[in-house]
């Protein structure tokens, strides 16, 4: 199949939300204000592990505050994330509990007329604590002798036993790994460690809830999952789902921190129901930083290859410190194996993953969902293997990568699908050319204080989690497309735009399919009462799955439109074509081969209405049966000051295989942003805990959660992006995803560049100047 010339796809238009965003008129959850609204404050634990012996709201209530603790809310067990199917969903959360499991764990909520009063009332709540022994590292957790972090965890309705704070484990075996390693000529084994990165989305996760007179609720939350939030709120508060209205509202950044329904959402609902009035809770940055972070990993990875570079066996053992709760560590353990196994062909593999509770912030998805962690180890190991084999690292990769026609299971063992488009070779070849790969320095012969290094890594993400047979993950989207009487089009979907242009992409797919200029497609406001289920805008599924549904439904609406047109033009439907007329800003329907026999879409829609034929409208839920890999490759040039260990990024070449690129400028923006966050993970981002107090050493203040800034990054000219020329046959008009793929190989690429400059392979992230200096010294001392 080949690409055709598109009218709309691949062209840049101002994004539909941009005017509001650039004029300060876009409303985010923390901006919403309603008549009679109270402001809520969440009370958060000062201890890493403790039980409430007594809680007294008298003084707070005397100040006029409404207060709730565990005594005032349903005691249901649940999981904040409903993306997985029930049989794979571990439930260890309660709305509020008498037990706190981390510093910053919510234990009560107060609401009052003003934020100031709420804050004072919060200070007036009296609590007596029984402080419990805490576990601040997985090693300590596994040795637990005192009270465990969780005593009750449910899988469906079954209580499951918890031993030594182990949340869950997974083992996956394919082939015969012992036999495989025997066949290997070269084996490389290392331990890799990746950090507990904080999303630091710019808007702390917030929520507004209005109880409705009919017993329902309307909610404006920071979330990536409108419908799962609706379902969870309905379950928790026993409200029929047709009375739970969750409104789509842009969030000030997500990066995975809102795939689940964060506690601020149901706590806002709980206090609003108690107060009988609208309540807003917009937490502070310090609160938010205790609410979510990326899964940190520690794993050993062993790969064996034959002399010719063919991989024969691999073994991986991962330990994941998940913090205070499950936000689907089970799924996470599955994808760790999936990302690994789907990067390179491994006939024999053995994987064991263990997720352990600790008294720290709960871990959840963050851009890449385990892929950056695993790709770091796998790509580093591949480069090490190439060194040992004295083989070009690119050649080794091209020989072994999982590509066209092969089966992969990036999203875990239950999500298997076949690959139909593959731009890997183009990404590696072109990227190498653009960075000057062939003339990269030899780390062994580098001298002088400032040393340049060039490194590369490749990776992928799945476009969604669709598979031929449903597995552990839900994945479908619903869309409605309606052709209006003036020829304009409404697209209604619960899909979300986190900033990457997802909704515009869906609108473009609709415009292209129906044959109208982009401006003619409007994105309707959406809420859960007016839209069908959409699992979540996550997993790089926005364009492929969400856009795919919109595209499919547009085709259905178009079919109706053409049927109406065929009555007017007196020509069979099969002979009709559509196209946008950009000059007149309208869509045209014409008879193929007789372009003069034409009519505007507006005329057809009007005639259909006036003749009582009906509206050209369609709605459907669509599940994708594939999740094609969105491949990326990064080539990075750094300069290392070998006397201070400081690393400067000098140049970046980012290549992406996103199939047909729908929004080129926004897609490039994904690569820029993915690089920046990935480089931050490689070079400095982490959250450490004080082992005495259980508090974050940064005290929750971002003055000590440093991220790369504008002045730490290269000039725009030194950031080169390109796209592979591919067409995804299972995608909407050839498109697949990009989002998370834009980050996945970055930490590995940065580490490889540092190795090229210093001669040292770092296996622990972040790679701080302190580490580089120590390693250089060790190296000098032999």
């Amino acid at each position, binding site marked *: 199949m080949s690409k055709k010339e598109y009218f709309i796809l691949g062209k840049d238009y101002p994004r539909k939300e941009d005017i509001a965003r650039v004029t300060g008129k876009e409303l985010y959850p923390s901006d919403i204000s309603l008549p009679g609204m109270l402001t809520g404050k969440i009370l958060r634990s000062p201890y890493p592990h403790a039980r409430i012996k007594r809680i007294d709201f008298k003084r707070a209530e005397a100040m006029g505050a409404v207060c709730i603790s565990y005594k005032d809310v349903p005691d249901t067990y649940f999981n904040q994330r409903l993306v997985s199917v029930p049989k794979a969903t571990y439930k260890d959360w309660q709305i509020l509990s008498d037990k706190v499991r981390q510093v910053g764990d919510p234990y009560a909520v107060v609401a009052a007329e003003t934020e100031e009063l709420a804050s004072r009332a919060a200070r007036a709540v009296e609590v007596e604590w029984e402080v419990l022994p805490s576990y601040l590292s997985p090693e300590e957790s596994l040795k637990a002798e005192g009270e465990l972090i969780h005593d009750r965890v449910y899988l469906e309705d079954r209580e499951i036993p918890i031993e030594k704070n182990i949340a869950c484990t997974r083992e996956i075996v394919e082939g015969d790994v012992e036999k495989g390693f025997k066949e290997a000529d070269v084996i490389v084994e290392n331990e890799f460690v990746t950090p507990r990165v904080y999303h630091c989305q710019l808007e702390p996760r917030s929520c507004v809830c209005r109880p409705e007179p009919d017993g329902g609720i309307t909610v404006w939350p920071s979330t990536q999952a409108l419908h799962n939030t609706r379902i969870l709120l309905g379950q928790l508060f026993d409200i029929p789902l047709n009375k739970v209205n969750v409104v789509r509202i842009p969030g000030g950044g997500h990066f995975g921190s809102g795939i689940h329904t964060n506690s601020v959402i149901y706590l806002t609902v709980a206090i609003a129901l108690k107060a009988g009035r609208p309540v807003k809770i917009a937490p*502070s940055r310090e609160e938010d930083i205790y609410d979510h972070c990326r899964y940190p990993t520690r794993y050993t990875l062993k790969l064996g290859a034959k002399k010719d570079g063919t991989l024969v066996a691999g073994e991986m053992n991962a330990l994941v410190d998940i913090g205070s709760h499950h936000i689907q560590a089970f799924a996470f353990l599955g994808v760790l194996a999936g990302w690994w196994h789907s990067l390179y062909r491994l006939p024999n593999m053995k994987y064991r993953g263990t997720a352990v509770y600790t008294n720290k912030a709960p871990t959840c998805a963050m851009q890449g969902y385990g892929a950056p962690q695993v790709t770091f180890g796998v790509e580093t190991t591949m480069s090490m293997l190439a060194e040992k084999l004295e083989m070009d690292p690119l050649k080794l990769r091209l020989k072994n990568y999982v590509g066209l026609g092969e089966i992969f299971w990036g999203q875990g063992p239950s999500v298997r699908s076949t690959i139909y488009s593959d731009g890997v070779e183009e990404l590696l070849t072109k990227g190498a050319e653009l960075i000057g790969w062939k003339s990269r320095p030899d780390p062994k012969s580098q001298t002088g204080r400032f040393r340049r290094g060039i490194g590369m890594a490749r990776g992928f993400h799945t476009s969604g989690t669709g598979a031929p047979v449903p597995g552990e993950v839900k994945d479908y989207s619903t869309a409605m497309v309606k052709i209006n009487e003036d020829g304009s089009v409404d697209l209604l979907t619960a899909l979300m735009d986190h900033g990457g242009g997802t909704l515009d992409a869906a609108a473009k797919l609709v415009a292209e399919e129906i044959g109208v200029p982009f401006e003619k497609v409007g994105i309707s406001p959406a809420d859960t009462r007016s839209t069908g289920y959409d699992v979540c805008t996550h997993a790089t599924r926005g364009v492929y799955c969400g856009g795919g549904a919109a595209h499919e439904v547009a085709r259905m609406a178009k079919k109706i439109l053409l049927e109406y047109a065929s009555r007017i033009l007196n020509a069979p439907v099969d002979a009709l074509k559509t196209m946008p007329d950009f000059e007149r800003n309208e869509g045209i329907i014409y008879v193929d081969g007789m372009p003069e026999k034409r009519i505007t879409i507006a005329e057809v829609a009007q005639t259909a209405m006036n003749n009582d034929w009906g509206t050209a409208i369609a709605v459907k839920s669509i599940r994708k049966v594939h999740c094609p890999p969105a491949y990326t490759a990064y080539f990075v040039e750094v300069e290392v000051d070998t006397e201070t260990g400081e690393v400067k990024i000098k140049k970046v070449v980012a290549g992406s295989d996103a199939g047909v690129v729908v929004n080129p400028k926004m897609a490039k923006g994904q690569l820029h942003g993915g690089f920046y966050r990935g480089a931050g993970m490689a070079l*400095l981002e982490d959250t450490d805990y004080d082992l005495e107090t259980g508090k974050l050493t940064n005290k929750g203040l971002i003055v000590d959660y*440093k991220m790369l800034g504008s*002045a730490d990054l290269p000039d725009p000219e030194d950031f080169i992006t390109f796209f592979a020329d591919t067409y995804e046959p299972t995608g909407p008009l050839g498109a697949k995803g990009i989002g998370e793929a834009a980050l996945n190989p970055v930490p590995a690429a940065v580490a490889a560049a540092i190795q090229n400059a210093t001669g040292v392979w770092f296996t622990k992230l972040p790679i701080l*100047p*302190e580490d580089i*200096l*120590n390693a250089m010294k060790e190296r000098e001392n032999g």
Partner: protein
Amino acid sequence: MADTKIIDYEFSYNKAAHLNDALRHLQEKGTRILAGGTDLIVRIKTDVEKPTGIIDISDVEELQSFVIDGKVEIGAAVKLSSILKVPVIRERYMGLYEAIDSIGAVQIRNLATLAGNLCNASPGADSAPPLLTLEASVEVASLEGENVEKRVVPLREFFTGPGKTILKSDELVTKIIIPSIDSDSGSAFKKISRVKLDIAKISCAVYLVAEGQIMRDIRIAVGAASAKPKRAESLERELKGKKFEQGLLEEKANLINKDISPITDIRSTEEYRRNVAPVLVRDTIELAWKRAKGAE
């Protein structure tokens, strides 16, 4: 847990019209001075301080003075960004210029003051090392009855420890005084930090006077490497009067570790600070030398 969204308690607020007024308010217990507020408001929000009263000195005219007349005098209410706009500072006091330019971001420098940066007495205050090398002093005022009493304190005696100065609770810094500098001098400031927008892991300022190939005078100060910003006297002694040579710098720079007593904190480790201190000092001396020789 701190709340950086609001300040949830009440305090009194007064805007001083003149120095006398400011000093009178300062006599009330629990009153804190607000010049730019970029530190004070953060300290209040994060529960580090809980003043009962705030006296805002940003409009006091006497504290707005900026005198350049051989020596330089910078009033306590002068914003950091205003200092950066003065051509003499940019051209002749490059160490000071670079240090101020590295404080926070432009939004901070548009509010914050030099006196504020010093009075917070952070061991890593960027402006302190260059001012120490310039042998600056601060003028301190207090009220004796109805009269304003002033004293001048050399900056090197001003800091007493992390967050601590010799200031009494009713005293106010009115200006910073920088004595005139040699026409053959050059100065520089460098810091190592996690990212550009950051407090230093370690910082260094150098002021030196070149006479031919000789470093006739050299003053070195280091920040974030001791309980307070301080001069590196042992190293200065070793270098003063010596010929400027790479070899000498390489050989002597390690002495910096005699002058500092760094700790491990969230920004870096003691070991790292000790490792890079000689490098940073060398780099800063080289840059100051180039400038003294008019080569940069």
